[in-house]
């Protein structure tokens, strides 16, 4: 089955239990069918069971697309494994299709021989027409390459709920639980986690709670008692690093990281934001955490959001703003202001497919050059990029550490795949994290607004309310030391170079890039951001086949890790997969004069492991 290998098989009653090391399931249905919920519950149960997991939701752009239509299909893919895994899987081993539209939009990803479970009740003339099927695919032989299971999910679900006291519509809403129950049986998962969740979620609404439980159990028992399924499967626990875990999405991890930075610095967090997909979750998360002193400001637009964040930073808070590509464009001028006034500021950009409005729910890495250069004048900022969903926590803290120490805007460059995807997170010990010293200026005798720390070139953070430090800042060029307005040519030249040098000096605090594999020779596959998972997996597989391939990933994009140039020079060939047309590759080629090859795609989706593996094979044979 796909990437899984049959490790052992044993008999359990009349049904066979087959042990697998990895399975990927995709739940697909109408956006009203509760597929995100089914997927999330399957993920939780698998995580609690001790599998390593990775997920990726595929959410339609339209909030309420017509029922049964192709644009209305919503999907959730979860991969669970007994090994460490880094991606939600290239292709599903199992596709659960709740209607013809879900089948049509997802079947191309299911490999031949894959398991296909369909809700056959929904394959009626109306729905087939909405999905633009001329003939019923269940009957015309087109699904012959797959192991097709036709399950009358709606009928079985409604029959199980006939005494529930619910309306027909309410009963129908439970069918995702039936499908989930069936998958729980098929992969030997216990029902407890989901039963507990149902109780918490619907506890007050007894009829609904009981109906969901009944539907879940009915799906499970259907698998157990029917003879339709010859086999069910077992995926043993993964050998993860010991510790306490939870499942977390990148956006949740980022929110927690920002709050943690606020605690570490002992200064309140202020989040100015305008709702935008796929970054809004961070606003929702932070709005919940008022008891941490977090102030969230839903601004009138993207510019107001960053303006308010700059104002908060001026006042000594951790001024944060978050957005996605088009919003970053709108914030450009204000980022330039923050460069000029040299205040700590973090700008989170959860990248989506562009240009313009692009594809808001789809992922891309194509805002890199915008983050690097998308402002007027010489306007350098520090940029960090998390590698995985849980790494969003680490890099959120790191962004603040740099912003405060160097008094500079820092762009936190996440993407939709990281933001919405989830994986287990080894919960950190906050006592082990180093404090961040805001180091406010207080001495009126020696204060000069643009005097600099000789090591970091940071200027003083002198906040209102400090007697004797009254001073004026602004977007006009500043005189060195005094910060007064200056049009002096030599001063401007000096200040432009000082601001650039300050960002370069951030490299003092950046760890070296670490190579996994050989330390020189052969092919180096280099990545940044969310390509970490696929690159790591593809390189591990290529090395298992004896290929001379190594992997390196960097999370500081500006400035770059200090040893990166040396590392690049040690390999015969360098490959850089990016979900853009080669933006980082262009920067590295210009900076290091190394002939890096690109693997690029921009279809709104992350790379598959196979795509990277194929390119490796092409380059090293």
């Amino acid at each position: 089955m796909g990437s899984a290998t049959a490790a052992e098989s044993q008999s359990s009653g009349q049904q066979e239990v087959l042990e697998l090391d990895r399975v990927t399931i995709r739940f697909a249905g109408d956006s009203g069918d509760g597929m995100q919920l089914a997927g999330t519950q399957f993920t939780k149960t698998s995580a609690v069971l001790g599998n390593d997991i990775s997920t990726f939701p595929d959410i339609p752009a339209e909030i309420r697309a017509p029922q049964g239509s192709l644009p209305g299909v919503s999907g959730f893919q979860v991969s669970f494994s007994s090994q460490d895994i880094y991606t939600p899987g290239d292709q599903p081993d199992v596709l659960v299709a709740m209607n013809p539209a879900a089948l049509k939009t997802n079947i191309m990803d299911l490999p031949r021989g894959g398991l296909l479970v369909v809700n056959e009740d929904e394959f009626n003339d109306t729905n087939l027409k909405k999905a633009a099927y001329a003939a019923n695919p269940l009957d015309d032989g087109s699904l012959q390459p797959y192991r097709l299971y036709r399950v009358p999910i709606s009928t079985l679900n409604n029959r199980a709920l006939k005494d529930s006291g619910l309306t027909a519509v309410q009963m129908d809403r439970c069918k995702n639980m039936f499908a989930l129950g069936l998958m729980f049986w098929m992969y030997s998962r216990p029902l407890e986690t989901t039963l507990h969740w149902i109780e918490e979620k619907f506890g007050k609404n007894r009829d609904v709670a009981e109906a969901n439980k009944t539907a879940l159990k009915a799906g499970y028992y259907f698998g157990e008692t029917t003879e339709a399924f010859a086999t069910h499967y077992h995926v043993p626990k993964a050998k993860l690093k010991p510790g306490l875990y939870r499942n977390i999405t990148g956006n949740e991890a980022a929110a927690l990281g920002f709050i943690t930075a606020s605690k570490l610095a002992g200064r309140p967090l202020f989040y100015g934001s305008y709702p935008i997909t796929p970054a809004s979750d961070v606003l929702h998360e932070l709005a919940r955490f008022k008891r941490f002193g977090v102030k969230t400001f839903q601004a009138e637009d993207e510019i107001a959001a960053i303006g308010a964040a700059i104002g908060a930073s001026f006042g000594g808070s951790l001024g944060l703003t978050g957005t996605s590509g088009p919003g970053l464009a709108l914030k450009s001028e204000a980022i330039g202001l923050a460069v000029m006034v040299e205040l700590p500021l973090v700008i989170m950009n959860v990248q989506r497919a562009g240009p313009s409005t692009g594809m808001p729910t789809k992922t891309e890495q194509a805002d890199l050059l915008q983050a690097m250069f998308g402002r007027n004048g010489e306007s350098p900022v520090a940029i960090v990029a998390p590698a995985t969903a849980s790494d969003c926590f680490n890099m959120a803290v790191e962004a603040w550490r740099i912003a405060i120490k160097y008094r500079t805007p820092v762009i936190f460059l996440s993407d939709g795949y990281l933001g919405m995807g989830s994986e287990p997170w080894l919960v950190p010990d906050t006592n082990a994290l180093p404090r961040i010293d805001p180091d406010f200026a207080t001495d009126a005798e020696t204060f000069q607004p643009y005097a600099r720390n000789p090591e970091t070139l940071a200027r003083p953070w002198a906040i209102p309310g400090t007697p004797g430090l009254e001073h004026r800042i602004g977007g006009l060029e500043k005189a060195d030391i005094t910060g007064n307005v200056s049009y002096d040519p030599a001063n401007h030249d000096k200040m432009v170079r000082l601001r650039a040098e300050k960002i370069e000096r951030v490299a003092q605090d950046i760890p070296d890039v670490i190579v996994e594999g050989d330390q020189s020779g052969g092919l180096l596959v280099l990545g940044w951001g969310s390509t970490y998972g696929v690159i790591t997996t593809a390189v591990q597989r290529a090395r298992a086949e004896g290929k001379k391939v190594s992997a390196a990933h960097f999370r500081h994009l500006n400035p770059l890790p200090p040893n990166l140039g040396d590392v690049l020079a040690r390999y015969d060939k360098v490959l850089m997969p990016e979900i853009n047309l080669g933006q980082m590759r262009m920067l590295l080629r210009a900076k290091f004069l190394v002939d890096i090859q690109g693997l690029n795609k921009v279809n709104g989706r992350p790379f598959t492991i196979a795509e990277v593996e194929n390119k490796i094979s092409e380059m090293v044979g």
Partner: protein
Amino acid sequence: MVTAQRNASEIPVLTRKDFVTDQEVRWCPGCGDYSILAQTQKVMPDLGVAKENIVFISGIGCSSRLPYYMNTFGFHSIHGRAPTIASGLKASRPELSVWVVTGDGDALSIGGNHILHVLRRNMDIQIILHNNEIYGLTKGQYSPTSELGKRTKSSPYGTIDAPLHPLSVAIGAEATFVARALDTDAQLMVQCLERAHKHRGTSFVEVYQNCNIFNDGAFKDFAAKEVRSDRTIVLEHGKPMIFGKEREKGLRFNGMRIEVVEIGVDGVTESDLLVHDEERDDPTVAFLLSRMEWPEYPVPMGVFRAVKRPTYDGLMAKQLEEVIAAEGEGELSEIFLEGDTWTVEAE
């Protein structure tokens, strides 16, 4: 600690000079901005606020240079965005006295959106709009308050867009304090600035400011000393609306309209006149006053509207306090472990 406020008794006695910086003032000689700066510096020592707790924030334009000349904390930001920076500062540091200095282009053209929203939120800040009905810094293009048909460098055949009435915009945007002053009337300006500071919520003060280079005499028809008492009316809370050299004229309602009447003519007495009520919650009368223009009407000056409404920064702080009182201060370990957790044991 830096955020601690000094008590009024601890604040040293300051004078206007304490609020003057060492920076050379660079407005054109004769500009109305000099007077606004002088009155602003003059009211500062009497506010009862420590100098270090006062912040002036501006956008771009001639008026927006003002923070450089105020010896307080200051932030000369980018075009139109001063209200956003002021909002973030005030929301995060409610104890500060935050002033926004802006112009007709800065506030009503490029920054129009922010003006609407800062007013509806009722952020507790003061906004001083220097309205000269022209773009001065860019050397003489028409502004969103220039009169229809105005000939400027960018409208040699006359403008074709209708002007905004800044105070009508403010009232429409739910402003809780709206006032108008004149650059050449120092006394009234000081009163307006003091009242603006005292008001809890966004205070919006429009100052008619003469640009003697690009729009000289824009207000002289009604603002010149010799005609001012006949062509303007100073609004006073609780008093009948009377104006004129001899205080012989007044305003009254005629149906839905305000009309000018002469006291003693056609049996009109003071008791027929409109009585100014700046605290009236309904904004209708304030709005009608904001539409009054010379020569049909005397131009109203002073405080149009001053109503009570909770401030955004106040509500934000209150919400935080209430949540912390109810749920306790947050512990990271507790939110780290939200949802289902599991332990992986060492082998």
